[in-house]
């Protein structure tokens, strides 16, 4: 799936890593699968991202992930709000400075709240109306 990034669609195709599959760049990988082959992932030349699942405990994230350039937060369904708390904890308590990406069931009307807890980029389908998604980010402009 592409990402809405810095107000534009990044059409680079990201996929979700499966255990049987090859460790490769432009993949989202679960924490468990990452831990199984962390050195292989770290050796890759190109972007990859661990996905924090709603059930994950952030204290289990190894230190190197907290300085990794990207980290994804999964929203399995848009009504599951645990990812918002994870984003906030990552930004503040864990002092995560890299790019936070929302993946999963990410919808136009939720991205404003996601941005306000510190999420930068949003998994989306290739045909979204970019101007409309950007508008969603400023509909409640004065909410902080």
């Amino acid at each position: 799936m592409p990402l809405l990034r810095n107000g534009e669609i990044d059409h680079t195709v990201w996929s979700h890593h499966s255990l049987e599959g090859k460790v490769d760049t432009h993949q989202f990988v679960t924490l468990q699968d990452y831990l199984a082959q962390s050195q292989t992932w770290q050796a890759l030349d190109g972007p990859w991202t661990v996905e924090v699942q709603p059930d994950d405990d952030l204290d289990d994230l190894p230190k190197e992930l907290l300085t990794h350039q990207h980290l994804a937060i999964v929203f399995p369904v848009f009504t599951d709000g645990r990812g918002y708390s994870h984003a906030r904890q990552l930004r503040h308590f864990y002092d995560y400075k890299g790019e936070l990406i929302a993946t999963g069931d990410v919808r136009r009307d939720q991205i404003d709240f996601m941005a306000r807890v510190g999420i930068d980029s949003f998994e989306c389908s290739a045909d979204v109306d970019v101007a409309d998604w950007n508008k969603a980010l400023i509909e409640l402009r004065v909410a902080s």
Partner: protein
Amino acid sequence: MYQYQSVDRALVQQRVDQFRDQLNRFNAGELGEDEFKQLRLRNGVYVQLHAPMLRVAIPYGLLSSQQLRTLAGVGSKWDRGFGHMTTRQNMQFNWIEMDNIPDVLQTLADVDMHAIQTSGNCIRNVTTDPLAGAAGDEFEDPRPWCEYIRQWANFHPEFNWLPRKFKIAVSGASKDRAAVAVHDIGLRIFHNDEGEVRFRVLVGGGLGRTPHIAQVLHESLPPEHLLSYLEATIRVYNLAGRRDNIYKARIKILVNAIGIDSFRDQVNAEWAKSRAFAPAWEPERVQQIQADFAVDLPARTGELNLAEIKNISFKGWLSQNTQPHKQAGYTVVSVSLKSPRRPAGDITSEQMQALADLADQHSQGEIRATHDQNLVLAHVPTEELENLYEALHAVDLAEANIGTLADMIICPGMDYCSLANASSIAIWDQINARFTNLDYLHDLGDIKIRVSGCMNACAHHHVADIGVLGVEKKGIEWYQLTLGGHSGDGARIGKRLGPAVAKSDVAQTVDDVLAVYLAQREQEESFVETLDRIGISAFQEKIYATAA
């Protein structure tokens, strides 16, 4: 009352525009049913049996006369000429067309009102004591704190998708009139030995299918930590609350599953981690909000001597529907929405208009909503009471039944609600028809009857002296009674009387319960005191012997 700042006004306007756009996209097929449902819920829009229902927030239960006139206008223009007061200081409209809702929200926004977060799994309207600022037993006016919490809770980015709805109530007096112990979080404000403001934080109260009384989470929280502590508490719930079963998703289930001590440990651990990045304490902002709520009443000396009053109906109303004000020369007036001629809690647009005028003439232009589905004029000069009574009586708002058995709390039931098993309004009519003698009601004293049409317990039947719950068995309505519940200080859940009774027997059963109480009560004993002394079996013997 609190004056909207430009930021509040801009936000509410943006929210109206946002909802109008969401509805347009839904109508155009660009927004799915599942997603639109969640978006409309967060704007107070339910789809009920006959039509969408709009739940309008009345923050801290306080309305200006202008706002009440606007609600009257909404009722006559878009509904069927009335509105309905809920037990959580909201007003509901039951007959609004979906396509009109953006215009209704715009009309409300124009007088600083909204329906934001009045439903959905987010932090709901913060409720409080309807006598705030007027009661003599108050330590601190709770409304500025409600507003402080509201500013934090509305559009809180982290807590818009909680496992389930989240209700907060605040009480600032020695007597709890906000039912804080049956809320997800209840806050009791008090003064410590140094005279400083402190909050006793209760957590995990709630009714519904699994009723629980809240437990103490923090005994004495200083105000500078209020928001950071609420954030830590709700974050623990957001991450650990169950999401697999809607009936086990409230915070009360989590607290009771792991125990209050373990829950407190988790909150404290989260608080230690997160308090540094919680919203900063801004005492100046709180002081500004407090200044907005302060009402400066001119000194008055008017008094009434009950013994000298000749007008019997005025006298009855005075003794039942008024309470002392903290300032001499003023009286707190309850406006009964429990006329037997209308469903409990309903108020017509004409009545709203008349009441708005009376509030301007007699009570600083403000009206309060209560948890008992009534309204209050809080600052009435005592010398104006008789004129006010006559004016209220003329519009059928002076039924002298506040606190009596006739002051029942009733959910909308099958007449409106798609969840209900039972017709609460028919039960209301049945009980009203049986108990018409006001002298008898006054003799019974303060007895609460609450009728819920289903397990969701919207009328909070568990905390009534006599609770009535509609249940369905093989397509037939039955009614289960509970006795001895209470929602204020010493809150407790009522006990089941026994097998459910037939619909036609509800009023008779209530009558039988009251007969046992009247026969057994000693001196000034309340219903609960008699029940505790003689036990529920004394009631069961009478009821089920009669039935057999």
